[in-house]
């Protein structure tokens, strides 16, 4: 049968349909039975059956493709499972090694925190700025919206990788070319740029020191003072800039957040702004006193979703550093580390432990965010 791929595919599809039909009918029947045991009316029993019957394909898929693998992963996290080797239970050994011994994991945790602390606010800020700009009724606004959303559609494919590598080249990349040109034309900008390089290198040196316990690069950056006038960011060349390159890619992909902000901005009644304008409020004041408070649910949503996405960041790191391993440890994220353990070293048990630890971190951070939302998120309009 397997030598005829068409027949095999056909029969596999048929078997899948049969399974879904039976599983759905079974789930519907179970729902009806439970409702019947609860002594509900016949109509409610029928409604429960129909409801669960139609929801069942998704529920069955969720159980098979999400719940079961999660349970398997949880079990493997307590084993030394490695492809091609016998599996043995090792208790909490994987977790202990991760938390106590693994320098690489600690580094990936620090890198991810860096990206979350600096990258996420920047991404939210740029998305909000673009949304506010695109919310103006101007000619070609749809073209601009589509353009800024384009990176989300493009994702991080090989062509994008090549483009970013060219863009970020220290010598003739377009970003550095522009920085050089602007700083030469406007000396004030040049000083600002040098100041920014100074601060970025000190901050990154500090985080690198947290990773490997050696603060040499931070101390050197501090000692050298303001960089020379010909200095430019060494984006994908220096460990002091590797994470900043990832942040650029994070910001580049802010299109989804921008659309959510746009939806929020269109929901704000114009009368409020107009009333404030009549009362003499400046544009800046109206933005902070009206727009931002009323947008707070959207900001909160983007922060929660963005935080989860950043704590799981993988693609930008993979795109930029998969072939540049000497620099990778200064940039790789928790999920990149998980990918490496699982798919490069084939350590499924250890990789599973990493994934559960990441889940725990995300759960705690998200819980804290929800606990704090009452202090600043207002749902008056909603």
């Amino acid at each position, binding site marked *: 049968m397997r030598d005829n791929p068409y027949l095999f595919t056909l*029969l596999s599809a048929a078997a899948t349909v049969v399974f879904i*039909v039976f599983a759905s009918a079974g789930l519907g029947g179970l729902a009806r039975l439970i409702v019947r045991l609860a002594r509900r009316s016949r109509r409610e029993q029928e409604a429960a059956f129909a409801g669960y019957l139609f929801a069942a394909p998704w529920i069955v898929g969720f159980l098979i493709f999400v719940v079961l693998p999660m349970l398997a992963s949880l079990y493997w996290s307590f084993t030394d499972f490695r492809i091609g080797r016998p599996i043995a239970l090792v208790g909490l050994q994987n977790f202990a090694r991760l938390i106590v011994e693994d320098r690489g994991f600690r580094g990936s945790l620090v890198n991810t925190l860096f990206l979350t602390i600096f990258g996420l606010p920047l991404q939210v800020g740029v998305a909000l700025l673009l949304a506010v700009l695109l919310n103006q009724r101007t000619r070609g606004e749809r073209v601009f919206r589509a353009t800024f959303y384009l990176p989300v559609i493009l994702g991080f494919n090989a062509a994008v990788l090549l483009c970013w590598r*060219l863009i970020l080249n220290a010598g003739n990349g377009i970003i550095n070319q522009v920085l050089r040109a602007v700083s030469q034309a406007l000396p004030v900008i040049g000083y600002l740029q040098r100041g920014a390089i100074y601060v970025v290198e000190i901050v990154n040196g500090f985080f690198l020191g947290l990773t490997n316990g050696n603060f040499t690069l931070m101390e050197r950056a501090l000692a050298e003072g303001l960089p020379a006038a010909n200095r*430019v960011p060494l984006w994908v060349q220096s460990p*002091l800039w590797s994470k900043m390159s990832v942040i650029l890619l994070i910001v580049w992909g802010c299109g989804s957040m921008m659309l959510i902000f746009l939806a929020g901005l269109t929901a704000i009644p114009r009368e409020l702004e107009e009333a404030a304008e009549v009362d003499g409020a400046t544009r800046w004041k109206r933005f902070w006193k009206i727009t931002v408070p009323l947008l707070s649910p959207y900001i909160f949503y983007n922060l929660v979703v963005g935080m989860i996405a950043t704590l799981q960041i993988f693609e930008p790191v993979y795109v930029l550093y*998969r072939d540049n*391993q*000497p620099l*990778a440890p200064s940039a790789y994220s928790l999920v990149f580390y998980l990918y490496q353990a699982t798919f490069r070293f*084939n350590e499924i048990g250890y990789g599973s432990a990493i994934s559960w630890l990441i889940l725990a971190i995300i759960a705690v951070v998200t819980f804290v965010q929800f606990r704090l939302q009452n202090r600043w998120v207002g749902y008056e309009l909603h």
Partner: protein
Amino acid sequence: MRTSKFVMVVVLIGAILVACGGAATEAPPVEQAPPAEESAPPAAEEPVTIRAYIVDYTADSTDTWLEDEVVPAFQATHPNVNVEFIWGSWSTFGETVSGYFAAGEGPDIINLGSEFNGLYGDQLAPLNDKLGSGAWDEIGNFIPGTLENASWEGELRGLPIFSAPRYVFCRSDVMQAAGYTEQPTDFAGWVEFAQTATVVDPATNALTQQGFVPVDAASMADFQWYLNTVWSIGGSLYKADGVTPNFDSAEAEAAIQFNYDMKRAVYADDTVGTLPAGTGSVIEEGNGAVCLWHSGWAAPAPDSAVWTKVDIQPFTGDPTNFPNSQPVVLSFVDWWAVPAYSPNIDMTVEFLKFVFNQENNHRYNETMNLIPARADAHTGYVVENPVLQREAELAAQYSYGFAGILEPTQLQSILQTELGLYLTDQQDKATTLANIQQQYTQVLQDGGYLP
């Protein structure tokens, strides 16, 4: 009432489909053949499908040739065999192939690189009894170093496609402009050369000419380059027992110091920008590199005019300080491996013998302009092209197999990380070597190689 009828109809349809499915799955499938049959060639009329996961190096060239010419030619003598190719790439290789081995089910042939024989070696079929010298006369025509890469624990696990050694390619015209007529022959000479031949543009604080590029022009930290340096001065990765790591040896220390000195000879400090991004090889006209240590993959195209100005040599180590130094061209191969889970090992081996016969090995490599793993396939384009001929000669003379490395992917990761830290001054030399020794020892202990 309506619901009950609906359920009955659904159950009825389901029952019918189950009956169909059940009947079909009861047909005698090939994979359910008893294990004893696995070692015997299938009967002539029994249909067999061989699936091969092959890295598509040159789309519309290698793949077209394999599908349109090789498979039909093989089927002329094996009409019952169907061959399906799954075209892959190195970027998705890890997750795809580890999935096959985790599931214990997948293609009958997998395209591997040199570094994977240590990772998957245990899970590949031992083939000495089918492809060894006693079983297949033609095996003697392969370059020995290439077979070493396609072996694990003394057993052939597949056959090598090509030999891709790492040479030192130097632009003789730029060398002369820098005052050199020949490539340096020891560590001190190379460091001096790299410094002399490197040019930094003060206006942009970026390189416009880089004296030496060991694989990666920016970081200059590469584990293959480091291992090549160790081996070239007579060092070894393992102590006399063949298992205990040897990164506390004098050779390991001298090699890592040399790697650092070369980096600093090019990048006086870590504020200097890299060479401008160009197209093609870094030693192509206008791309700025003077010497490149790499394989033919990173060298200029075979028909490039620049080859008349390129000198190709092995890396000679440091005979001044290490008398055991030897010229080395680090030999990498890509190869077709046969996983142990394959239910069609015998027919797969027959297909391998066909793809890797003299003519096909030659044609396979011709589609990629590489050096065939078979010495008797070094004809036509190989000998007609002086560059490939020179490379083939050096490979035959100085080839050093990148093989026999225990837990290779883990070692690669450790070395890349630690070299990266050392070459950017985030860590001193002693700490770096101690970390490599300690971490690799731990990996070998976890892998069961060391107690």
